[in-house]
């Protein structure tokens, strides 16, 4: 097991290193000069040269890369060109609103998705199964921005129950904070909820056809015990192993959701930073997201390496 953990850790570090190379390389392939974008068309050559030196962009690319990585090891993320503040500070300011949307969406999508998956698999072939599976299929095919718009139209513009856009911190007004988050959380939850439902259903159906489930039933165990204690525990393995990817997808999804609902989070920051070529912001935010995904995948793999020896051997 120790060898397995060591191997997975090594692979994860290599993946993180490759991510830094890809992100750094892609950022510097983007057309346009970030300093020129920041200063505007009226900037003089002296001003451009001054700021280029200030942000270290006059250095050769390998030097810039090593400086960035060296800074990360010291916990420094450099300065944002657009916002003129430390990227770490910028990230800390924005992360609360992003987590306020992604965390509830992650939990809700997981819990409701698993429950609906169990219900559909235990009612296979019946009306309830057909109905829920059809809804899940439509949910996967629906663009998040479109469903967000429909909610805005119904609950924001017509019924006026919820604010159309914006974000109010919890410290300012807890009730407004919740009102602001209802629609973004629902939108982000729906897509993932649908895929979790489908995944749980298919996983449960595969497990239910196994011999040990038949044995459990023939022992006279109640259907509830068979489903929840024997089938679901094994069916959850592929769902939990996919959670690392789900974390990345949720964080990626915030780019669209925060843009739609005008939430000042990390996703909205990423979009602005890519448009403005704000090197340090894009590099560091992508790095943080990729590290979060890699750590989730690593922890899940190690956890299941312990629980299920088959995964360890594979």
């Amino acid at each position, binding site marked *: 097991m120790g060898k397995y953990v060591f191997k997975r850790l090594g692979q994860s570090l290599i*993946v993180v290193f*490759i991510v830094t190379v890809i992100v750094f390389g892609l950022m510097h392939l983007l057309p346009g000069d970030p300093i020129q974008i920041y200063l505007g068309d009226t900037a003089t050559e002296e001003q451009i040269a001054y700021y280029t030196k200030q942000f270290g962009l006059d250095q050769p690319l390998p030097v810039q890369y090593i400086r960035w990585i060296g800074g990360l090891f010291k916990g420094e993320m450099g300065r944002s060109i657009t916002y003129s503040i430390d990227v770490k500070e910028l990230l800390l300011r924005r992360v609360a609103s992003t987590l306020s949307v992604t965390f509830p969406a992650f939990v809700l999508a997981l819990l409701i998705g698993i429950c609906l998956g169990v219900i559909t698999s235990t009612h296979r072939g019946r009306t309830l199964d057909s109905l829920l599976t059809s809804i899940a299929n439509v949910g996967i095919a629906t663009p998040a921005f479109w469903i967000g718009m429909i909610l805005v139209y119904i609950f924001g513009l017509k019924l006026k129950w919820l604010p159309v856009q914006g974000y109010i911190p919890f410290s300012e007004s807890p009730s407004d904070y919740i009102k602001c988050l209802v629609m973004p959380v629902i939108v982000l939850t729906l897509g993932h909820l649908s895929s979790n439902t489908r995944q749980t259903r298919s996983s449960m159906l595969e497990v239910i056809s196994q011999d040990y489930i038949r044995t459990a039933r023939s022992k006279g165990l109640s259907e509830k015990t068979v489903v929840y204690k024997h089938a679901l525990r094994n069916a959850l393995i592929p769902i939990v192993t996919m959670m690392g990817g789900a974390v990345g997808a949720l964080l990626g*999804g915030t780019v669209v959701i925060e843009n739609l609902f005008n939430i000042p989070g990390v996703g909205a920051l990423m979009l602005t930073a890519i448009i403005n070529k704000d090197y340090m912001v894009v590099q560091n935010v992508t790095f943080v997201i990729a590290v979060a995904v890699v750590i989730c995948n690593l922890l899940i793999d190690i956890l299941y390496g312990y629980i299920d020896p088959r995964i360890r051997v594979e």
Partner: protein
Amino acid sequence: MKKEKEAKVLTPAQERRKQFLDTFFATIPVRIGFGIIAVMIVCAVFAPLVAPYDPYTQDLTNMLQGMSGAHFFGTDALGRDLLSRIIYGARASLSVGLVSTLIAGSVGIALGLMAGYLGKWIDAVIMRVMDAMMSIPVVILALFIGSILGKGLGNIMLCIGIVMMPGYARMTRGQVLSVKQLDYVTAGKISGATRMKNAVKHILPNCIAPNLVLATMNLGTAILTEAGLSYLGMGINPPTASWGAMVSDGYRYLQEYPHIAIIPGIFIILTVWAFNVCGDALRDATDPRLRGTR
């Protein structure tokens, strides 16, 4: 009596084909989905013949019209006929889906084949790069690549193709690892086949079926990604009709004219749903063990 005679003369290949088609078209949603795809393809191919108006002609005297006999889905803020733009939008969405899937599939399969068959450091390098690409969220990676390549139909196809590539590489590698242990591959080696010939002639054909299923499912994902990028303003260049961009444009008029944003969205959902349902059916038809599990 005549039908019985026809059934008897079926060759094994015809029998297999019939069984495949029977399984594929077994459920009503698949038949509906297949019909939707067929209609979309006809609209995309024959858009100039099917569309009632030119999708780019602006008519400012007729802007923001509701549904009527003259304009079935109404008009947008520039007075362009929405139905015509949706029909032309099908062309953009389907071509993005198809070409980006082809790019992702061909490059991904080639990389997966190399990684799985050659193994050692080539496998390690290719798969770690694929893992790294997969650890960056699709939207963010697509935004990156899209910004580098720039807007436009061709660039969006390439961008989405690159983003979807790791899935094919992973799947093909897994297939290759299991197939290369089989006796006939070893026999090929012994009989003097070159590594290239062995990989392409003996291993590759066995990796096509699961990749074909993945490709069908990815068609929907590609269409959704294009719509998302166009919604964020990083997709297809205006005035080219794109369903995602149409939803984005319609958002500004949501309160008074919600149909401008709602209708193109319904077409995205229908098309993506149809591809997903057909992808599921294709997988079930090629792998009988999974029949009815999804």
